[in-house]
């Protein structure tokens, strides 16, 4: 029996490490997607942001975040210890758990990167990421996954792999930032009309989406958090299949919808449709294929209309991250009440609102403090020239820009 427990320990830890590695790869997906949907004159900064945000998230979550999220039994937050310590698990490795969780934190931060792309200052952004991953994300995560339920306020709230805890948190933080940051120059004219700013590489954006899609199997599959029994493996397999189905429905729905609306299929919307399906199903990928299909189908519709909606509000989101992660994070979380009889719509709504209110308020204050101290937006001229040359002195494709 002792040997069997060891095997369970090993397999569950392996699941977390393997799934964590898949999720870590999502950082590459976010980088490619963002680089592809933005202009090449800003690509270096975008790649730099994505690289550094992952590194900063890893460090900050280890130093402060993990303990704040999972340590202790405080109702508002966990233990405020410096460096991960004082926590152990009987059924899996602590560091496997940490690694699996840290890549989730980085995912939330990646969401923000896309929304503020092409006009954010690197250091202002990284300071925000540092505080988000050390404090804001772990505190709200403590209420659901940390088990505190915020003193009972969030009792019954269900979010399997993080539609709210990860994705909409990234979305709320990004929304607060973009409201203070403003739109990119030239995105909206004086009559409020949208001037589309075309991305630099749809192949890159598509590659990024496929990488994200792949990583999501780790994101949702790993969130089963156990691989010690045959039932666990069945559950993981079901989650993989449901995740895949939601993305497929999201992509196909967005394709059909753009064909109907614009008489042409918009690839960028299809990419967002797949991601929207993935975000939506994340709250309940263990509820079967029908649930995943409906989640993905609705997400595919929501993402298209919310991209248009945010543009109407002149909230400039170059990659559609608000529509994908915020809107569909909310949709996916609320939809759990449709599929899970133990969960009510009110419980879910309450959880979404509490997490949203906290994350948005804390993020807004933090963004504001950064704005009035070191600033968050690059100079207008730098933005016009492209931030790459001014912020990094590099160009993403130097051979193509050399003359003669």
């Amino acid at each position, binding site marked *: 029996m002792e040997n069997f427990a060891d095997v369970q320990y090993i397999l569950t830890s392996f699941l977390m490490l393997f799934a964590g590695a898949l999720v870590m790869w999502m950082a590459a997906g976010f980088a490619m997607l963002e680089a592809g949907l933005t202009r090449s*004159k800003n690509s270096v900064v975008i790649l730099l942001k994505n690289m550094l945000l992952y590194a900063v998230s890893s460090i900050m979550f280890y130093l402060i975040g993990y303990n704040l999220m999972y340590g202790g039994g405080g109702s508002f937050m966990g233990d405020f210890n410096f460096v991960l310590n004082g926590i152990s698990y009987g059924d899996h490795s602590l560091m496997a758990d940490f690694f699996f969780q840290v890549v989730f934190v980085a995912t939330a931060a990646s969401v923000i990167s896309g929304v503020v792309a092409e006009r954010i200052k690197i250091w202002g952004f990284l300071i925000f990421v540092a505080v988000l991953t050390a404090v804001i994300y772990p505190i709200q995560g403590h209420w659901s996954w940390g088990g505190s339920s915020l003193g009972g306020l969030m009792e019954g709230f269900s979010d399997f792999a993080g539609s709210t805890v990860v994705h909409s948190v990234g979305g709320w933080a990004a929304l607060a930032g973009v409201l203070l940051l403003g739109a990119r120059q030239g995105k909206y004219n004086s009559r409020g009309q*949208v*001037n*589309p700013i*075309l991305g630099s590489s749809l192949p890159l954006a598509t590659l990024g989406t496929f990488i994200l899609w792949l990583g999501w199997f780790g994101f949702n599959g790993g969130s089963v958090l156990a691989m010690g029994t045959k039932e666990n493996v069945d559950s993981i397999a079901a989650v993989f299949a449901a995740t895949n189905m939601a993305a497929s429905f999201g992509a196909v729905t967005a394709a059909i919808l*753009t064909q109907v*609306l*614009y*008489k*042409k299929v*918009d690839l*960028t*919307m299809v990419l967002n449709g797949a991601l929207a399906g993935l975000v939506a199903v994340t709250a309940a990928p263990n509820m079967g294929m029908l649930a995943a299909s409906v989640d993905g189908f609705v997400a595919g519709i929501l993402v*298209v209309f919310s*991209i*248009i909606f945010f*543009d109407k509000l002149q909230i400039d989101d170059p990659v*559609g991250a608000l529509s994908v992660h915020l809107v569909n994070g909310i949709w996916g979380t609320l939809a759990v009440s449709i599929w899970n009889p133990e969960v009510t719509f009110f419980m879910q709504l309450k959880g979404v609102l509490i997490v949203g209110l906290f994350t948005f308020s804390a993020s807004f204050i933090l963004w504001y403090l950064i704005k009035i101290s070191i600033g968050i937006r690059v100079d207008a001229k730098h933005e*016009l020239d492209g931030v790459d040359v001014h912020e990094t002195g590099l160009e993403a494709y130097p051979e193509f820009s050399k*003359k003669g």
Partner: protein
Amino acid sequence: MKQDWKLIQSFQKKVKLMNDKDRYVASVRKARAEHGKWLNAVKVMVSGFEKNKDLVALNQSESPFGVWLNEEAILLSTINSKAALIDVEEMFNECYSLYHKIYHRLFNTKNSSLLSSVFGINKVSVDDLKLSEHYYEELVKKSDQLTNKLRVYENQVQANGEEKFEGLYAKETIFIKEESVEIKTQRYYRGSLISDD
């Protein structure tokens, strides 16, 4: 006509050292000046100082401005300022329609005698002359609109970054012409109409 075309070519040689944006802007200015010359040539014809009916090309695509419009202006229209160029093209067509009316009044030989035709002494009737002067006045107004539109277009072009013009002159004109027809259909990016102007 060949002389005019050679002038444009020599001008283009001079601007080879400029970057593509400056070169394009210079070509817009040059085209505006060419249209002014064209208008003066018509004026000379209407005033009777010049009897040579070949002074101004009847086919608009052979006039210096028409050459610019069809061969050079269109290069940028594939990426920018298409609406302004469409307006310019329409105004230029209207100018030429008026010029055709003037030409018809000044050089219509249908009613002239064989003798006068042989000796080249076709006289323009007073009525035809008045009508051609009337058409010329309309032509001047239309040309003013055209040159104003060209100034607007020039400002729009100036407002663009240099990167938009990079490699502009390296492209094959014929290829660009075909492509410009292709993109006349409406295009959307993330739910927003891609404007060509």
